[in-house]
């Protein structure tokens, strides 16, 4: 039996390759994700190990506000410089250096634009001299407060050199400095993990990066010989007291890497999500291939039964075939995944500017994942066809039976049940009735909905395929192709369903994002009463900001009524992390942002007063007059009295508004956006250039009109959409393989018929036309299903988000049309090889009997 299986496998190399390819792609995605994150993870480990190699023990102050990777930046609290003396006095300390190191030193390059790092921090600090790690490549150390040294990567990216006079944005607005030196790192590296660094003199660094004089935010300690890092850590901690966090260099590097890996793990999960989609589509494909193979081998399998093989042996034979395909595909997928992971890691390291990659590794998770996924999916998909194969009666070997059309009742009922289950899960998940498992419930609902619709597809396929094919009715080969596509509803359905998944997901996500975009834009248009907006496109974790002095100057321009700057940050209010904002002109809240009061007065704020949103007030049981303890990123905790409550809107996302003065303690101490309202009758074109001129020293932002601002904000979603589309394109590629596979197998199955058609005068081109029409009908049918299911899913999500302010359902008709057109092209492309094969069929060989 084993030999027979193996032989039949080898006799079907093409099928093997095609159905295996889907598994290969899925496995590739899974293992590639693991290889990528593993490699990047170890690279970062190495970078942090290097960065903290010369730190035996490190001192930092307890953070005022602990935030995680997704909430924003952790601001290290400054502490008095005197602490360094305290540390020096601790026995066992050989050397203690007070350092300043903080994100947010943005150098303006030779082109007048801020140099961005696209992710890694842009550190600003005090120059504490060369070390084993840091070495000056050119120039000298900074001696005056207007002198800086920068790392080589930054010099390269900004196209600046020693001697240049450059602007740097810090906590303070733009200031000019002379570059007096360029430094690099051991191992001839220009940057550690893509980080840009600007080093000032210590007083300048304290003022610009920490905002205070005579403070540091780290103390780097070298231990005396014979003193262990751990014991020194403990004695330093004892000397400094509870307000400080003392760690060994190893701890520090491990903690820093752990934070980054949290981000990587998130990235990994996203990649695995796309792998899951690819595998779902692959499952359809394998299921279909095995079904067709079993159908075509009916005679052969019956013969095996006739000569004494048991049903179990038949199942075994089919499953064995699946295992063989699964194994080969897993190995290939793993190898391809390794390649893809390496390639992505390389690309990432290039984008991140000088991330030195650790040696590529094959993590156990990649290997286990690859084989588990590859084998399990293949065998699972082959199980149903295997069971069917076992039911073939031995007598089938003696008869020349065309497999009769099995009724679709069972599969339709099953489809209806599964679809209903999916819909129920979606309803529960979206309606917020799934306690704690919302995401899992929604994903489960989507999965069940897909499977259910796939099961319903055979029933739908008859009328829809007939309608689609009507286009080709006037043309005989077209009509034949259409009839062929309606011939085996199950086969057509699964092939189309595979395409449906990818297109449905893209359509669904597009519906959601477009609806969100349109709703928010509409809301912005309706509520924001500002003609001009000062804003910039965000290209890293840190939003662009500008000098608040610009606002006062803008207000002085004739015709400007209000010029408000908006600050934002995460704060801790009553133990909970909360988004807070501050305005340079509190009255703008109502007059510019269209926010309405539900209680109290929201037009003005005394220094000890705050406003909260109606949502926050409701959930925390607050009213006008309540007091709240607020801890910001900097400074001490302060108590504010609620003087007003404003109506929550989807647009104005902050839950609390603090007085302007509080923004000094925000992690970004400058306004992020500015809104300018003009006096009636003032021409925008008169004011805009004057505001633009004021922004000369704030190159991160520009002044645009409201429509431009809304477009700019909305376009941030476009990038996300594009990324999702690219990743989901893989699922569509797999579906195309499915169409190729189905067609190739059908062509094989219909050799005799094709021979006959050729014998009675069908030209080669007509034969190809016939196969192409079949492919186009199947793929357009799949796209139609996908667009319909996707629009449905998207509409359901939008409906669920109605309370979040997404109140407009936007169906991307244009894009849906594009998908249908694309599907037609996909059909034509998928038909190329099978149709060539069909056209080349040897007429005599196909029809001659014996």
């Amino acid at each position: 039996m084993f030999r027979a299986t193996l032989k039949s496998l080898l006799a079907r190399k093409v099928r093997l390759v095609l159905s295996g390819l889907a598994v290969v792609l899925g496995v590739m995605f899974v293992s590639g994700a693991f290889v990528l994150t593993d490699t990047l993870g170890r690279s970062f480990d190495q970078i942090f190990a290097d960065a903290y190699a010369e730190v035996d023990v490190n001192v930092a102050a307890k953070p005022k506000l602990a935030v995680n990777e997704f909430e924003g930046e952790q601001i290290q609290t400054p502490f008095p410089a005197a602490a360094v003396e305290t540390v020096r006095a601790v026995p066992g300390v050989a050397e203690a250096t007070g350092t300043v190191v903080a994100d947010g030193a943005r150098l303006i390059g030779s082109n007048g634009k801020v140099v961005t790092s696209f992710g890694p921090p842009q550190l600003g600090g005090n120059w504490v001299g060369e070390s084993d790690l840091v070495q000056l490549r050119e120039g000298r150390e900074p001696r005056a407060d207007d002198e800086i040294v920068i790392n080589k990567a930054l010099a390269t990216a900004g196209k600046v050199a020693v001697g240049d006079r450059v602007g740097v944005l810090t906590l303070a607005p733009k200031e000019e400095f002379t570059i007096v030196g360029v430094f690099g790192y051991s191992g001839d590296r220009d940057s550690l993990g893509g980080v840009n660094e600007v080093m000032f003199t210590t007083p300048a660094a304290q003022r610009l990066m920490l905002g205070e004089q005579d403070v540091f935010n780290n103390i780097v300690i070298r231990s005396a010989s014979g003193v262990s890092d751990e014991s020194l850590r403990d004695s330093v901690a004892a000397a400094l007291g509870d307000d400080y966090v003392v760690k060994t260099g190893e701890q520090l590097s491990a903690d820093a890497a752990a934070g980054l890996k949290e981000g990587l793990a998130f990235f990994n999960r996203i990649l695995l999500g796309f792998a899951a989609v690819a595998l779902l589509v692959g499952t359809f494909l394998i299921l279909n291939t095995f079904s067709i193979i079993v159908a075509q081998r009916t005679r052969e399998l019956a013969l095996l039964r006739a000569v004494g093989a048991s049903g179990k042996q038949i199942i075994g034979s089919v499953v064995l075939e699946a295992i063989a395909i699964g194994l080969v595909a897993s190995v290939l997928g793993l190898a391809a995944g390794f390649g893809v992971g390496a390639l992505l890691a390389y690309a990432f390291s290039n984008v991140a500017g000088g991330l030195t990659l650790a040696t590529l590794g094959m993590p156990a998770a990649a290997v286990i994942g690859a084989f588990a996924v590859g084998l399990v999916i293949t065998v699972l998909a082959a199980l149903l066809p295997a069971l069917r194969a076992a039911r073939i009666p031995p007598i089938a070997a003696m008869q020349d039976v065309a497999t009769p059309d099995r009724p679709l009742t069972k599969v339709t009922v099953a489809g209806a049940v599964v679809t209903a289950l999916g819909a129920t899960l979606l309803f529960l998940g979206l309606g917020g009735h799934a306690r704690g498992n919302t995401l899992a419930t929604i994903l489960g609902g989507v999965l069940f909905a897909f499977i259910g619709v796939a099961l319903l597809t055979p029933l739908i396929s008859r009328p829809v395929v007939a309608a689609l094919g009507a286009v080709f009715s006037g043309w005989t080969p077209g009509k034949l192709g259409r009839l062929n596509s309606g011939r085996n509803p199950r086969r057509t359905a699964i092939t189309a369903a595979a395409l449906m998944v990818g297109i449905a997901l893209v359509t669904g996500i597009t519906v959601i994002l477009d609806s969100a975009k349109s709703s928010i834009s509409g809301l912005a248009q309706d509520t924001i009463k500002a003609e001009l907006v000062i804003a910039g496109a965000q290209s890293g974790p840190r939003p662009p900001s500008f000098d608040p002095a610009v606002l006062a100057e803008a207000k002085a321009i004739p015709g400007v009524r209000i010029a408000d700057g908006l600050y934002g940050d995460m704060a801790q209010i009553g133990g909970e992390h909360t988004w807070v904002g501050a305005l340079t002109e509190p009255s703008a809240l109502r007059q510019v942002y269209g926010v309405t009061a539900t209680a109290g007065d929201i037009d003005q704020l005394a220094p000890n007063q705050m406003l909260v949103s109606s949502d926050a007030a409701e959930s925390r049981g607050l009213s006008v007059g309540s007091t709240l303890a607020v801890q910001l990123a900097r400074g001490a905790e302060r108590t504010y009295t609620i003087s007003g409550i404003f109506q929550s809107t989807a647009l104005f996302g902050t839950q609390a508004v603090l007085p302007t003065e509080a923004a000094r303690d925000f992690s970004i101490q400058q306004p992020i956006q500015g809104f300018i309202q003009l006096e009636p009758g003032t021409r925008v074109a008169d004011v805009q250039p004057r505001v633009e001129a004021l922004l000369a020293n704030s190159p991160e932002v520009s002044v645009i009109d409201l429509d431009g601002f809304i477009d700019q904000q909305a376009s941030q979603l476009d990038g996300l959409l594009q990324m999702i589309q690219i990743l989901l394109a893989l699922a569509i590629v797999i579906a195309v393989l499915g169409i190729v596979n189905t067609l190739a197998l059908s062509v094989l199955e219909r050799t005799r018929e094709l021979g006959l058609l050729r014998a009675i005068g069908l030209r080669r081109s007509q034969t190809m036309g016939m196969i192409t029409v079949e492919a186009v009908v199947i793929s357009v049918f799949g796209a139609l299903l996908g667009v319909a299911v996707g629009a449905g899913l998207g509409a359901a999500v939008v409906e669920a988000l109605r309370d979040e302010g997404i109140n407009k359902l936007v169906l991307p008709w244009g894009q849906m049309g594009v998908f249908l057109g694309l599907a037609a092209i996909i059909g034509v492309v998928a038909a190329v090889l099978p149709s060539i094969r069909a056209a080349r069929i040897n007429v005599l060989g196909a029809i001659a009997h014996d």
Partner: protein
Amino acid sequence: MTATTGQPAPAAARASDVWKVYGSGEAQVIALRGVSAEFERGRFTAIMGPSGSGKSTLMHCLAGLDTVTRGTVHVGETTVTGLGDAGLTKLRRDKVGFIFQQFNLLPTLTAKENILLPLSIAGRKADPAWYDVVIDTVGLRDRLDHRPAQLSGGQQQRVACARALVARPEVIFADEPTGNLDSRSGAEVLNFLRNSVREHGQTIVMVTHDPTAAAYADRVVFLADGQIVSELIEPTADTVLDTMKKLDTPAEVAG
């Protein structure tokens, strides 16, 4: 039937010194050894011979389904030898009809659609009067909307015959048309083929190994070992059988 210039009775199909060799070296098989034959218009000719005699090969070569190694083949005034795929397709579409042992109907099409398929592929319309004649002759009027799976073997073969006839080809090649039918259905089909020759002047060349089937033809050509060895005009089942028996003996000695 139409006025032809030149010769008094131009052949519908003609083979001139046709050789067909498969393979090379030790595996070489010579299927046809210089066969020359003419198949007159308006006649029903049977090609007979034992298995391996080359009768099917001869038919395939005549119909342009297979190429000849040497010699030439004509269908009507068309020289088949040397035509490319496009030319052969055109020949099959416009000049030749086929009836196969396996019926070979398209399962997705109704009987009527199957019958009209060659014409619709060629983008031509059927002559309605002739179509009616064909349908009535094969007696399928009440079965026209059925699919092949709903028809008996005999009915399916009659559909196949009608498909070959409706385009009025120069010549119809029938390859063991009764091979898969019981004797009654077989007789129906053969009667029908003979009538289409007698009443409508159709030319039919039929390959068979069944003496009873051959007896329906006007003429029988016997092939053995790749050569034409004998011929009968106005055959009966008995005369065919006798000739076959005579052929078998030397063939066995040779084999």
